[in-house]
C-alpha cells in the first residue's frame, strides 16, 4: 500500500521536473547560441579610443554620439544593437566624414560603426549613419589627436676635405 502511494506521488513529481527541464531547454533554444565574433573584427583598434558604452538609438530622433581617438592608423567604433541584443540588419552612411572612412559591420550579436581617420589627420570630423530596421540615425562627432613622429636624425656632416697637395 505504502509502496503504491509512493509511486503515485513520485510520478507527478518526476513529470514536473521533466517539464521544468524541457521549459529551460526551450528557453535556451529561443535565446540561441551567442553569435560568432571573428578575430579580424577585433584587430586594429586605435590605442586610445573613447566612445560611449551604452548608446541607445531612438526612432523618433537622431542620437548624437562622440568619439575621440589617437590617430595611430587604427579604428575607433561605436557599438549599438537592437534589443536582444541582436545586430541591425544593415546600415547606410548618411553623411560621409571629411577626413576618414566609415565601416558598418556586424560583430557578434551587435553592430559596430567604425571610423578610420586619414593618415596624419588631427582635428575634428563628423559623420552620420542610419540603421535598419527602424531607420534609427546616429550622428557621430569625432575628435582625432595626431602627434607627428619625431623628425629623423640629421645626417652626419661630411668631414672637411683637405685640398690636394700640389707636387
Amino acid at each position, binding site marked *: 500500500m505504502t509502496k503504491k502511494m509512493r509511486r503515485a506521488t513520485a510520478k507527478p513529481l518526476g513529470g514536473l521536473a521533466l517539464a521544468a527541464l524541457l521549459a529551460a531547454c526551450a528557453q535556451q533554444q529561443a535565446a540561441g547560441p551567442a553569435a*560568432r565574433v571573428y578575430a579580424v573584427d577585433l584587430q586594429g583598434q586605435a590605442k586610445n579610443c573613447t566612445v560611449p558604452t551604452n548608446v541607445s538609438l531612438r526612432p523618433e530622433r537622431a542620437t548624437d554620439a562622440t568619439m575621440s581617438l589617437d590617430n595611430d592608423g587604427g579604428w575607433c567604433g561605436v557599438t549599438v544593437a537592437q534589443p536582444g541584443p541582436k545586430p541591425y540588419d*544593415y546600415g547606410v552612411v548618411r553623411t560621409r566624414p571629411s577626413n576618414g572612412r566609415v*565601416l558598418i559591420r*556586424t560583430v557578434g550579436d551587435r553592430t559596430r560603426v567604425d571610423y*578610420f581617420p*586619414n593618415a596624419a*589627420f588631427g582635428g575634428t570630423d563628423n559623420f552620420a*549613419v542610419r540603421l535598419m530596421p527602424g531607420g534609427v540615425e546616429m550622428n557621430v562627432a569625432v575628435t582625432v589627436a595626431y602627434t607627428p613622429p619625431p*623628425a629623423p636624425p640629421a645626417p652626419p656632416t661630411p668631414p672637411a676635405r683637405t685640398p690636394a697637395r700640389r707636387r
Partner: protein
Amino acid sequence: MSKTTTPPRRKAYALLLGAALLPASPALAVPRCPTEADQTVFELEALKTELMVVATTCHMEDRYNAFVERFKPTLASNGRAFGQYFARVHGRAGTRQNDIFITELANARSNAARQLGSDFCPRNSGLFSEVMALVGATDLAPYAAGKDLLSAGVTACEGAPAPRPAAATRRASR
C-alpha cells in the same frame, strides 16, 4: 674643363637621408574621387565585386544572381557610369583601363578573402543577407559607402593603375 661628379661618400649620405625619411613620411590618405558621384560609382562597383568573390569562393552563386536580379537597373546604370568615368579620364584607352581596374579590384578582394582563410565564408556571406534586406535600390549606394571596400589594394579614381602591356592584362570574369 671640369666634370661634376657626385663623390661616393656624398651619394651614400643622400641614400642614408632618403632611407631615414622614408618611414617617417606619413602615408597618404586613401584617395577619394573629386566628386561624390564618382566615389559612389566606384564604391558600388567594389560592392558588386566583393559579392562576386563571396559567391565564387563560398559557392553562393544563387545568392549573387538573386542580388543582381533584384538591383539590375541600378547595377546597369552604375556600370555605364563606371565605363564613362574611364572614357572621360583615359580617352580611347578607357575600356582597357576599365578592364585593368576591374581585374585589380577582383584581385584585391580575393587577396583580402585569402587573408581571412576559413573565416571568410561564414563572416562575409552575411553581406548577402544585408544587401537583400535593403529597403530599396536607393539604399544600395549609401550601404556600399559603409563597407570600406576601396582602402586596400585599389582605391577610387586615383587608384586606377597605369597602363600595362596587353599580354600581362587578364580580364576578370564579371
